[in-house]
């Protein structure tokens, strides 16, 4: 579509030094620790109390909409932040923020805020209120006064009204009666055990990409008009429901307009009290812009950014900041950019582009203005995550043609300069449609930043999505959600992270006849037989399948129960207003209003399980060299005293492993992912659509790994699992072998995304490295091949071991060193020791001498 007219040389010349105010603000951003913001929970709780919502057996979408309107109308309109908090635990204090952002409004009332959702998971912070400000790892500041308000006023009414508790009371006990030990639900107990599965509906609504096309086309006033026209007189139940839905949409949209007008008023007040002409001008511009946007449709690039930003803050008032994603910003913004630059002469165009880059950088800081709730124990297990707001660029357009445009390159440059973990930049690359120049630029940014962006293969993703029923048009407009999950932008209300399933626990249950080493002698799942009595690998495979199916059933059951609680207690008028489908059907996305209604499961431990199955198949059954009983003894002893068995199991030349281009193991991987895909896809969620499967693990591969004993692939007790879909470290030193194994996997079985972590050692010559990099991606993505779709995704860490070690010793110097964990980007220094170790121990592929260095175990005290 759009020809590339932007001047790349200019773009690469502009760096933060050209934008001193922006740079200063970015420095403050990194100096600030997150502060817990009680504004949202306070206003939500007040409204619930004032209107008796806590006493209701069901909360209507209109009640919810009025709640959010109340928040929008009463929250503090902050144009520029004045103060931020330094590392309180080391005696740092409040400092001034010279905020000059062109974007007014904020997700919380703080410069960098922690969003609290008492409806969901906010109460977990309760025991830490007095200590969270000074905890050693990633502290959150909260004042004594705010802590008291949470303790006495805000938290108490929610004790029996969180999504988790309502679900427990409603679905497993007599309604609203306290449960006794006996009927305490299995699924919830399994969840609490951590090792089996987690269901994220307890902590958030969904992973998805809202639809911004309408606000950009007609403004909120146009959307309100549409909703009002659709509100017809209510006769039957269906019409009453629809009437209520459209009324709710109007409530929240009017609330957002009210918020933006109050921002304008606040800017006007600040302008009046300012003595500085430049500041006055800036504020006056904000006044005018926020009086217009997002109520009216935006006409310029800046106005379009403003519309998206303002609506984004409102979306986070409703939807927890866990993976809610922005979608294809380059596609949404390009028409505005194109119009803006159409009549500009060369010099003006240069000035404009520089300004556009600065605006995007400012927006990046805004998007990163909040972090999710994280308790201290969670920090130890799963820490370092941001809110994973993915931004997607590139790929193909609705006709299947090259969609890379000037804004794509502006966004890439902004991400390269800002190096923020949030937003999490995802690049789509179609090997047969997008240019080599674009790919080389993606490679270059990866080499320069060390981790940004992840690259998704359009050919493979489109095939995967269409295999699950998405139309070609829906698939072509996919964006990345959270970590790596592809969904049709604004169309798929597909909670990709609904279930996090630990596949290693299914293996464990099969090894121990329905018991798990972590939970002791208790029978957890159905007996599938003592494996020492099995006559063939097939017997064991069937037992593993049975246990997996049982786990899937438990996890999907809990997910659906929580989903039903969402439907009745957490209707989502804001998200529904910004989605394709609900406005036509007059139906909340939670009720099935969206065009696509899938749910998703992410699998933890794939490579370790596949390698374990391969080891069992080869040594117990094919070679009959290790009896099952002896294997179990070795596991029990964590291989102490079994060095011969350990040596065999760990040795890639002796025991076939996934990721070594070895069909023995790769075929097992294909069987496992196909089986999981078939089983999940066969199950319907509470919105009558299917489950899709993905392979990305955030930091769960390290956290859950701690709870898992030794496995038959030679993984020792408590060790990390391999991350995402990545093979176990050091199965090969030849990257092409690993990538060939990955490309063998049927892509329809990876329809909820996959994270392949590849660690490269930086080369002395970045240009040569860039060529190698691009060639590798093209080969992996099946460029020029009719039938071969190639691998679905690849993401890199291009940081040397020395830099990581240096960063561990001097975190203050490496505060913005980004790393890919599994899908999302984190700051290396924010990660706990176990995760840092995991990243450092990943196979390191050296592009330069052509072969990986065996990455010796890193000796780090955890």
């Amino acid at each position, binding site marked *: 579509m759009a020809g590339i007219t932007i001047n790349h040389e200019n773009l690469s010349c502009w760096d933060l030094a050209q934008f001193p105010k922006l740079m200063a603000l970015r420095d403050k951003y990194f100096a600030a620790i997150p502060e817990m913001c009680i504004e949202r929970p306070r206003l939500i709780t007040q409204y619930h109390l004032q209107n008796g919502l806590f006493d209701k057996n069901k909360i209507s979408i209109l009640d919810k909409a009025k709640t959010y309107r109340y928040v929008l109308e009463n929250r503090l309109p902050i144009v520029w932040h004045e103060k931020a908090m330094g590392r309180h635990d080391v005696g740092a204090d409040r400092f001034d923020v010279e905020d000059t952002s062109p974007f007014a409004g904020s997700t919380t009332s703080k410069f960098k805020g922690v969003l609290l959702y008492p409806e969901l998971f906010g109460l977990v912070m309760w025991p830490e209120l007095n200590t969270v400000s000074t905890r050693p790892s990633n502290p959150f500041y909260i004042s004594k006064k705010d802590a008291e308000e949470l303790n006495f006023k805000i938290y108490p009414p929610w004790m029996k009204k969180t999504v988790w508790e309502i679900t427990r009371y409603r679905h497993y006990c007599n309604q609203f009666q*306290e449960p006794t030990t006996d009927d305490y639900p299995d699924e919830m107990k399994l969840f609490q055990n951590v090792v089996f599965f987690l269901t994220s509906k307890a902590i958030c609504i969904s992973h998805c990409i809202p639809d911004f096309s309408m606000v950009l086309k007609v403004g909120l006033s146009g959307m309100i008009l549409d909703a009002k026209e659709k509100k017809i007189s209510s006769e039957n139940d269906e019409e009453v429901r629809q009437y209520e839905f459209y009324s709710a949409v109007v409530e929240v949209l009017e609330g957002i307009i009210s918020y933006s007008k109050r921002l304008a008023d606040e800017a006007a007040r600040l302008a009046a009290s300012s003595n500085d002409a430049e500041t006055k001008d800036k504020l006056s511009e904000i006044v005018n812009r926020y009086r217009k946007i997002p109520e009216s449709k935006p006409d310029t690039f800046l106005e379009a950014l403003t519309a998206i930003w303002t609506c984004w803050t409102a979306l986070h008032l409703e939807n927890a900041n866990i993976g809610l994603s922005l979608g294809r910003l380059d596609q949404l913004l390009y028409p505005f950019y194109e119009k803006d630059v159409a009549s500009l002469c060369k010099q003006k165009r240069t000035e404009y582009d520089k300004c556009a880059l600065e605006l995007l950088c400012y927006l990046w800081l805004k998007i990163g203005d909040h972090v999710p709730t994280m308790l*201290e124990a969670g920090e*130890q297990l799963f820490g370092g995550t941001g809110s994973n707001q993915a931004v997607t660029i590139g790929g193909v357009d609705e006709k299947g043609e090259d969609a890379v445009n000037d804004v794509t390159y502006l966004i890439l440059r902004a991400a390269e300069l800002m190096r923020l973990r949030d937003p999490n930049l995802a690049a789509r690359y179609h090997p047969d449609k997008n240019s080599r120049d674009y790919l080389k630029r993606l490679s270059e940014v990866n080499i320069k930043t060390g981790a940004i962006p992840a690259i998704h293969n359009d050919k493979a993703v489109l095939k995967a999505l269409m295999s699950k029923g998405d139309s070609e048009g829906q698939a072509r407009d996919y964006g990345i959600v959270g970590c790596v999950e592809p969904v049709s932008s604004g169309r798929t209300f597909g909670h990709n992270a609904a279930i996090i399933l630990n596949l290693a626990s299914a293996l464990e249950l099969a090894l121990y006849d329905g018991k798990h080493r972590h939970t002791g002698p208790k029978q957890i799942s159905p007996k599938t037989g003592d494996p020492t009595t099995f006559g063939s690998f097939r017997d064991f495979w069937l037992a593993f399948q049975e246990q997996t199916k049982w786990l899937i059933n438990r996890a999907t059951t809990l997910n659906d129960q929580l989903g039903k609680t969402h439907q009745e207690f957490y209707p989502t008028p804001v998200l529904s207003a910004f989605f394709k489908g609900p406005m036509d059907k007059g139906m909340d996305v939670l009720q099935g209003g969206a065009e696509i209604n899938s749910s998703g499961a992410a699998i933890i431990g794939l490579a370790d399980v596949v390698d374990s199955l391969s080891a069992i198949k080869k040594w117990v059954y094919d070679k009959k060299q290790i009896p099952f009983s002896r294997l179990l003894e070795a596991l029990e002893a964590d291989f102490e005293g079994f060095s011969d068995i350990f040596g065999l199991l760990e040795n890639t030349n002796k025991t076939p492993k996934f990721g070594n281009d070895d069909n023995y193991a790769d075929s097992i991987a294909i069987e496992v992912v196909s089986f999981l895909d078939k089983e999940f896809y066969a199950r319907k969620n509470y919105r009558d659509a299917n489950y899709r499967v993905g392979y990305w693990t955030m930091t769960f591969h390290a956290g859950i790994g701690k709870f898992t004993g030794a496995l038959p692939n030679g993984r020792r007790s408590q060790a990390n699992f391999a991350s995402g879909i990545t093979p176990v470290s050091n199965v090969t030193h030849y990257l092409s072998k690993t990538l060939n194994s990955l490309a063998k996997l049927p892509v329809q079985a990876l329809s909820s995304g996959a994270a392949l972590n590849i660690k490269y050692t930086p080369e002395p010559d970045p240009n040569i490295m860039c060529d190698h990099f691009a060639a590798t991606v093209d080969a992996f993505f099946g460029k020029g091949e009719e039938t071969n779709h190639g691998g679905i995704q690849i993401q890199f860490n291009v940081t040397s071991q020395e830099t990581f070690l240096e960063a561990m010793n001097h975190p203050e110097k490496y505060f913005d060193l980004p790393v890919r964990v599994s899908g999302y980007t984190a700051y290396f220094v924010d990660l706990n020791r176990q995760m840092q170790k995991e990243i450092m121990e990943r196979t390191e592929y050296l592009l330069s001498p052509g072969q990986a260095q065996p990455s010796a175990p890193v000796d780090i005290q955890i």
Partner: protein
Amino acid sequence: MTEGASFLDWLLGNTEDWSVERFLGFMKWAFEHSDHTSGAALGLKGYHENIENFKAVYVFETEDHLVQATACFNDGSMVVGTGGATKWDLKISFKDVLALWKFIFSGGNDIVDSMLANDVQVYGNLNYLYKFGFMAKDLVFQRLGLKRIFV
């Protein structure tokens, strides 16, 4: 039970000797005396507010069910008992009392360790655990000013 500083001395004894009942008993005393002179001197002022309008039953028991204690909160009052209860909001089952105190009073690593070792199991409404955790930590760390309770 004695009052004031001597009570604190009593509390400050070997923390490993704290029984559940003993701690709950102290908590009850703290609620009841938070607005008296003796409590205020210990920094307990306002502590009682935590249990105003609060109704809840907590059961504490060892894995072998031998040690049991209950705490019933009812609109500002707290009753500590031995033996179980048929209806409860939260039941904590623990390996030994030290494991319980670590679980309640410690931060990240100890909680993770306790989960890894399965030292403590929690049943029922976890929000009640969070509230109890706040009240216990607030009392011991903030109000009594103890820096840490385990060596």
